[in-house]
């Protein structure tokens, strides 16, 4: 079983479209949506939930106003400025360190566990899929990412699937780090824009920091061919394979509106490029 993770640095580069296409092409696989913050893969794969569960993570302080004598100790020590002037805890600022609950002489502060999300194991027309929905305004999505990836790995090992295909999280923070852990390869989907290149460099640095080999897909390359060439030159200098150059294709949007992958919707230059990219991914895996 091998894991391939599709990441992007910047959002909106076509990560989910590529992941869903790989899902449509690969024969034996489990899909995972690790973009738990703004999960979209289900919009294309139409999953039917088979199993689900709540995800709890982190705690938030709560001050009992009946016990509180407003001594101010908690306000004084809280480095996250989470205790307000009228001795309430601002849950947005609270980092759940529990310092206040330990220090409170009246034992008026309780740490309450947060239900931060829900995970699902589902069936799709391409096979099993593990995904999650993070509660609004919650944190710790890195742990939720690890949880869904763990479940996908279990399923893949139990049922003998060859691939775990991961729709990674955007950015370079905690959720992506969790998305990348244990991956055999990371596919960076980038657009030929200054910001796209800027973010892709950061995400490459991050993947290398965690020793995951990277490959590039340049999406919508014809929006700015010079920039696309710059990205290619950058990849060449860094010894990174560019496994596909995909042009802007309105069929991709049309397929999305119909809830389909581009592979199912059309047989054209885009789908050929994506098929070749998947070939490249599998050959690396074989090597």
């Amino acid at each position, binding site marked *: 079983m091998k894991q391939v993770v599709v990441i992007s640095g910047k959002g*909106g580069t076509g990560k989910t479209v590529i992941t869903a296409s790989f899902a449509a092409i690969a024969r034996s696989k489990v899909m995972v949506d690790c973009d738990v913050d703004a999960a979209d893969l289900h919009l294309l794969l139409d999953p039917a939930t088979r199993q689900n569960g709540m995800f709890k993570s982190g*705690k938030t302080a709560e001050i009992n106003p009946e016990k509180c004598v407003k001594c101010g100790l908690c306000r004084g020590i809280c480095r996250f400025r989470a205790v307000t002037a009228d001795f309430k805890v601002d849950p947005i600022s609270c980092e759940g360190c529990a310092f206040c609950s*330990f220090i409170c002489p009246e034992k008026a502060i309780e740490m309450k566990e947060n239900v931060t999300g829900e995970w699902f194991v589902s069936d799709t027309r391409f096979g099993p899929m593990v995904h999650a929905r993070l509660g609004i305004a919650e944190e710790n999505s890195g742990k939720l990412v690890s949880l869904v990836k763990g479940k996908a790995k279990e399923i893949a090992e139990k049922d003998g699937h060859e691939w775990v295909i991961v729709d990674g999280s955007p950015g370079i923070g905690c959720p992506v780090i969790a998305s990348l852990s244990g991956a055999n390869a990371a596919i960076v989907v980038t657009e030929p824009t200054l910001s796209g290149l800027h973010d892709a460099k950061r995400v490459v640095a991050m993947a290398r920091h965690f020793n995951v080999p990277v490959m590039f897909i340049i999406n919508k390359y014809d929006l700015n061919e010079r920039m696309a060439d710059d990205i290619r030159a950058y990849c060449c200098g860094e010894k990174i394979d560019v496994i596909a150059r995909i042009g802007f294709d309105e069929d991709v949007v049309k397929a999305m509106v119909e809830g389909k992958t581009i592979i199912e919707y059309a047989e054209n230059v885009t789908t050929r490029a994506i098929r070749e990219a998947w070939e490249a991914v599998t050959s690396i895996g074989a090597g």
Partner: protein
Amino acid sequence: MIISVASGKGGTGKTTVSTALALSLPGPVQLLDCDAEEPNAHIFIKPDIKRTEDVFIYVPRIDEDICTLCGRCAEVCAYNAIAVLPGSGRTAGRALVFRELCHGCGSCRYFCPENAIKEEKRKVGVVEVGYRGELEFVHGRMNIGEAMSPPVIRAVKHKLNKGRTVIVDAPPGTTCPVITAIHGSDACVLVTEPTPFGLHDLRLTVEVIKKMDIPFGVVINRHGLGDERTEEYCAQEGIPVLMKIPFSKEIAAEYSRGISIVEAFPEYRDEFAGLVKKLEEEMSR
């Protein structure tokens, strides 16, 4: 007035809108790029950076000569950032600090009965302040390999200048970094695109903003691409559509070169400036 620009999902045009607003509004303006993981606004603003400040959190350093391995520090640490290994016959015990897991709350130091813990600074990113003419620009960059952006976002927000109209370019998503960025705003602009992905993420973001009780409106980017469902949703929910930016390869090409929409197409300037008036109407409701 503090206006946050958020998007739910990345790549919908948040930076396009926030930088265009910053370049179009009259009077003194400040732009805070709070997308500390992937700050992009500077590419379009091209500010002259005047100051760079490191962002630190305080992490514990345990003095092994004083430490008695009592384990109190590990007990109070909510993040499992300290492990105390008792010694056995042959090996000495140790107290280990995992600096990347530490949120810098200071609890361990306070509760150490032996006073064996001091704190040292750990750099997690930088904040840069620059100018483009009258426009004041601030952004934060998280170090690569760091897990937590909120300390950097908070450091950017500490630069908030209430004497100016403040535009906050929020990170994507609906989790803690976004909340940290949007917290305290007077109004919010949600940028979306008229596709099923865009609509799905817009719904999530609307939930967040409603929960935070901040007046808001929507900007539909790449209008003409996709379908009508996003506008139907806004109409049903009574959400004002503040502006529609048409889908155009020319706009996308200028964006790819790092040129703001209002510089390439000055006719949009008035529309962006007018967007704030519409938001003020929402606020006075």
